[in-house]
């Protein structure tokens, strides 16, 4: 078997195992067999082997939460790969370039200010505005270098995060700090079946087609002109893929808040194993992102049980050092 096939098999098996084990872990003591029993009974319409309370924990709470984690992790990793290739910037990530925070702002505007839009649509709008703002800011007075893009992303991200916090403080009562943390750092604590539906449809409609863009993304390796010489319609492809990235990010942030660093860490980790070709990198990063976020969320909800960390704290604790290592490895950020 090739290296790609081995990696795909390992990650696929790891995902199935992670989902089941993650559901079993937590305050109510559940066995892996019981988890499967409950899931099979719901799918087949037979009686669950578990009592109503514990069956509810599996089917109503943990399963949708773990599935949402897997879908969000997969989607963010795919967006990371696409953005890194399109902007020729190894540090690109939907969180670092401000898309996630923009999407949070869009979502919060709908939820708290009553802006008359569907939640994922508003999140997409926020992500798209943030993306355009970052790229415009980065290209003022010079070429779009990785360093400038990151700096512009930080500015946009901070601004959108501040506005999000402001909106929550302005409208909410009492417990608003918890909401702020959930939107700014990301949390899967509230993920139920509707979240699975939103993230699942977004992955099916946007994420899966993006996973087939590897051939085109490879063409960008030597820059826009080189891509054009290979027959790629550069401007059209760039904006189509960036808009699709913003759309997917918007839908994912609508259900999970702005979880950072997944799009940065996982593609780099997978590249170390299978090399830089985007065709295999896209689906394998998706698998790796799913496994990663399932475990990050399990850690977030079990480490200090009964208190929960926002999962973004876990991903940032892992992701920020990786970001630092990537910075150190670069000869010049430009």
């Amino acid at each position, binding site marked *: 078997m090739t290296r790609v096939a081995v990696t795909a098999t390992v990650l696929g098996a790891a995902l199935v195992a992670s989902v089941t084990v993650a559901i079993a872990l937590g305050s109510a003591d559940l066995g892996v067999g019981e988890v499967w029993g409950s899931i099979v009974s719901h799918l087949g319409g037979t009686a669950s082997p578990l009592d109503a309370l514990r069956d509810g924990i599996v089917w109503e709470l943990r399963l949708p939460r773990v599935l949402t984690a897997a879908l969000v992790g997969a989607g963010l990793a795919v967006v990371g790969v696409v953005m890194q290739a399109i902007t020729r910037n190894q540090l690109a990530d939907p969180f670092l370039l401000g898309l996630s925070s923009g999407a949070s702002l869009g979502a919060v505007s709908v939820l708290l200010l009553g802006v008359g839009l569907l939640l994922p649509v508003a999140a997409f709008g926020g992500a798209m505005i943030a993306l355009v703002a970052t790229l415009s800011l980065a290209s003022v007075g010079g070429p779009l270098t990785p360093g400038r893009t990151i700096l512009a992303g930080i500015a946009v991200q901070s601004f959108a995060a501040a506005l999000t916090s402001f909106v929550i403080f302005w409208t909410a009562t009492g417990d608003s700090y918890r909401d702020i943390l959930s939107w700014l750092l990301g949390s899967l604590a509230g993920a139920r079946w509707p979240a699975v539906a939103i993230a699942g449809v977004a992955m099916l409609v946007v994420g899966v087609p993006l996973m087939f863009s590897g051939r085109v993304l490879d063409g960008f390796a030597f820059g826009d002109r080189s891509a054009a010489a290979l*027959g790629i319609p550069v401007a059209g492809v760039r904006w189509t893929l960036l808009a699709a990235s913003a759309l997917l990010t918007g839908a994912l942030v609508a259900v999970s808040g702005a979880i950072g660093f997944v799009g940065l860490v996982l593609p780099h980790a997978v590249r170390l194993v299978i090399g830089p070709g985007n065709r295999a990198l896209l689906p394998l990063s998706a698998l790796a992102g799913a496994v990663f976020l399932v475990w990050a969320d399990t850690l977030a909800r079990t480490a200090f049980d009964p208190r929960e960390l926002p999962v973004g704290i876990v991903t940032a604790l892992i992701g920020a050092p990786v970001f630092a290592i990537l910075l150190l490895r670069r000869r010049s950020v430009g």
Partner: protein
Amino acid sequence: MSAVEVRDVTVRVGEQALVDGVAFDAPVGGFTAIVGPNGAGKSTLLRAVTGIERAASGMVLLDGVDLLALPRRQRARIVALVEQDATTELPLTGRDVVRLGRSPHESLLGGGDADAASIIESALARAGATDFAERDITTLSGGERQRVMLARALAQQPRVLLLDEPTNHLDLAAQLDMTSVVRSLTDGGVTVIAAVHDLSLAAAHADAVVVVQHGRVAAHGPTLETLTPALIGDVFGVRAEWTRNPLTGRPLLAIG
């Protein structure tokens, strides 16, 4: 003799014309050198002929078909360009890079290109890049990278190959290799158009020369008849005299 006919190609940035009504014929299966001082518009002209730089007007005709009017992917199967200083940060292997040259021939999902593997290997071999097939492109020297980029262009199986300063990063032995690669391509019917700095190289190997100055064609024709000492003085601002290379007997430019 049939030719690639470049017709009144103009490229503007704002008000300024970087390439201004350039027209010449490049014989099919011949080597046409584009020479001129720095900033004359040679690279822009090559990009315009490739269709990467949008020409404000003009046509590039091959067998009566305007290449600039073709869909991009179709054009990329006919015209390939090797640019100067193409770089990437991605640790792609030489073979990965050459494989990119097949992308205009593949279907959207990467299939439909049955002979890709053998075409890639033969492109690597012809460009003298087989030794770099497994190497990380970011660790190669400028000259080594240049060979890989040439192999990528050959993998496109172009009928027209455009080279921007192909010998720029090459040591002396590699320069000779490059000229023999170009010769083998033209012998195979490929039309080569290259921007070159070295007038001796142009005189020794090119079938025709196009002298570009301020974005316009200053002279055009068979190499030695065109590159007279007077013209070289006009365009490049140096005193020049043709002599013979004592080793090869080919023309050699003395300047002073």
